[in-house]
């Protein structure tokens, strides 16, 4: 069968700052400098070269109808540029792509909403901007309103909406477009948890109806949840393309520091960074798979050019179901007096009772001394597997593989007991299953 999306050798060059927000005065100044010979020719050429970069560099891949493809990569790897090219917002510098179906792209929720217009009017306007016909919007109007949960405020101008209502309405419109190809970028980062879940469900619905989804997210847990295939972009090129699990494993391994001096997490405001993160098991060797019930040790190698006093760092472990537990310095009031120069902060979980055969993602964040100003924004930094069997945690039965893969991820010791309070109806002997 013909692929629904064919991307052939797409490249995109950006010229930094060569057009756009500029005043006539700047331009005249440059002209004057040129005319008066002040600008040295060599310098100018260097400057011009520095102002060009290739956001996409010969990217090719195909997508078959019905596939859900996740795009991952660091900031600046070209994910958003690729989505913009595929949504026809910007044109490639070279190469071409072919899309065989109606495309709906959701790069930012609520673009095209007009604050003075009511929710009702905006549904029509936004639908039309996204390419829906009036009749089509009329047909789906009730469904959109029900999904967005803003029925009461339909005739209120959206400028009076809360940001949550705004996002809900916007996603509702886009999600009901029924495209053959749905392109989604990070929109799930907004809205509350239950609405995010609703969005993910809606997208899985779209996917299970045999339509094609391209999804970009920084959160590998949502990618894992939704996508069967992952394309990893690095420096504008496709670095890896394949089944979700293996690609994400490689990706997060690479993120974990590809050698000495690779900065993983840098504070946007302070001269401090976490250079490397290492996960160790009971034997103390760096590893990416931890036996369930065993020890989990996380080393954070930091470098601070100026003393950072009493920061709060925290780690969050997430599974496919979302965040499941945390280690937060605020919980124990164990904080380093000062971070200065280089060093290692170690966090140890003596026994991690996690469901085996699932993948887990480690995120790191940090706050300054005052306990609320961010030091590090929360970032996914590593991914690891948990091996072994539920038996290792003292559960004696052997559950099916399916249960292990999809069950919630934290296993606490527990007991079941059975207390019938009324005798069974005699005519039909009851069968009590202990399972």
């Amino acid at each position: 069968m013909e692929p629904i999306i064919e991307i052939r050798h797409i490249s995109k060059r950006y010229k930094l700052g060569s057009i756009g927000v500029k005043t006539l005065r700047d331009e005249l100044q440059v002209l004057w400098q040129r005319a008066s010979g002040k600008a040295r020719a060599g310098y100018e050429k260097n400057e011009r070269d520095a102002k060009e970069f290739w956001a996409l560099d010969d990217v090719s891949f195909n997508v078959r109808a019905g596939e859900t493809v996740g795009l991952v990569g660091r900031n600046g790897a070209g994910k958003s540029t690729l989505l913009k090219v595929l949504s026809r917002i910007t044109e490639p510098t070279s190469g071409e792509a072919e899309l065989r179906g109606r495309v709906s792209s959701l790069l930012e929720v609520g673009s095209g909403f007009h604050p003075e217009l009511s929710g009702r009017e905006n549904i029509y306007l936004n639908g039309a901007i996204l390419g829906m016909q009036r009749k089509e919007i009329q047909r789906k109007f009730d469904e959109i309103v029900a999904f967005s949960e803003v029925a009461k405020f339909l005739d209120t101008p959206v400028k009076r909406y809360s940001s949550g209502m705004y996002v809900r309405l916007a996603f509702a419109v886009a999600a009901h477009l029924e495209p053959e190809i749905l392109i989604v970028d990070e929109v799930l980062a907004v809205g509350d948890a239950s609405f995010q879940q609703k969005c993910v469900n809606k997208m899985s619905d779209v996917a299970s109806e045999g339509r094609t989804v391209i999804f970009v997210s920084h959160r590998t847990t949502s990618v894992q949840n939704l996508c069967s295939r992952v394309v990893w972009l690095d420096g504008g090129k496709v670095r890896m393309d394949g089944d979700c699990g293996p690609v994400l494993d490689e990706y997060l391994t690479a993120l974990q520091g590809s050698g000495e001096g690779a900065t993983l997490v840098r504070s946007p405001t302070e001269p401090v960074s976490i250079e490397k993160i290492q996960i160790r098991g009971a034997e103390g060797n760096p590893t990416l798979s931890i036996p369930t019930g065993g020890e989990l040790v996380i080393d954070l190698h930091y470098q601070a050019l100026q003393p950072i006093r009493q920061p709060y760092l925290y780690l969050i472990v997430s599974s496919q179901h979302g965040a499941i537990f945390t280690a937060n310095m605020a919980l124990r009031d164990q904080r380093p007096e000062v971070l200065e120069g280089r060093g290692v902060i170690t966090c140890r979980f003596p026994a991690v009772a996690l469901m085996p055969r699932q993948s887990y993602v480690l995120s790191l964040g940090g706050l300054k001394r005052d306990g609320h100003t961010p030091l590090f924004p929360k970032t996914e930094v590593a991914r690891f597997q948990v091996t072994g069997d539920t038996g290792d945690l003292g559960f004696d039965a052997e559950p099916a593989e399916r249960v292990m893969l999809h069950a919630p991820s934290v296993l606490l010791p527990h007991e079941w007991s059975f207390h019938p309070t009324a005798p069974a109806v005699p005519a039909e002997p009851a069968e009590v299953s202990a399972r």
Partner: protein
Amino acid sequence: MDSISSTHHIFIRPNRAWVRVDWKALWAYRDLLFLLVRRDFIAKYRQTILGPLWGLVQPLLMTVVFTLVFNRVAKVPTDGVPSMLFYMSGLLVWNFFSQAVNASSATLVRNANLYGKVYFPRLIVPVALVVSNIFSFLIQALLFLGFFIYFRAKGAPGFGVNADIALFPLVLLQVLALSLGVGLWMSALTAKYRDLTQMTTFLLQIWMYASPVIYPLSLLPDKYRIYSQINPMTTPVEITKHMLLGAGSFDVAQWAISAATTLVILLTGLMIFQRTERSFVDTV
């Protein structure tokens, strides 16, 4: 089957064409055009007391001021027709032009966010702005009609509708095309140089005095005539007065020149708009 399905097979490749108007896509998005026109209209008048009646205030005041300053004080002749009607007919077609240019001249800057996030035929926005201006034209046309009837009833001499009025829709079409062309030019330029946003009003002001809105073309000495013919708005203003009031001149050759200039401005406007829009989304 909805008509968007005609765009179902999408080719994406670098666009090197000079002027490319995707008529099919524009047609497929006609509902958006309609909604944008409506959005403009509602957003403009919501929370105002007079609403669309504001469209009457500006031309009425301008007419009164022109009558006092140019007719009573400066004694500029008005081709023998009542001065209020003379100014009002000039303003009718001039405002149709200038308001459309004003509205569409900042298209790219004002819609930067939208253009950077959603695909739709880019031309829809300026076209919608120009089209929604037809409403305020109609309101002003009613105003003109009111004064026309009033002066008729009063028995004022020297004016009357000319049979050439049958061609009036063509004049309006030309002005529509010209304002779109100038609007596209201005929005490309203001995207590149924000300073020019301030200049639009200024430019329109000078342009008005360069067009025979407040004076009859016959007043111009012959040696300046040739310059005024370069201005593509000269002929539409002049023949509007001819058609509505029987004043002024109607020269088909001049009209042809003005129409050709309009076409050039529209095509170059489309070209520069498309080129600028392409690089513009890459910098927002």
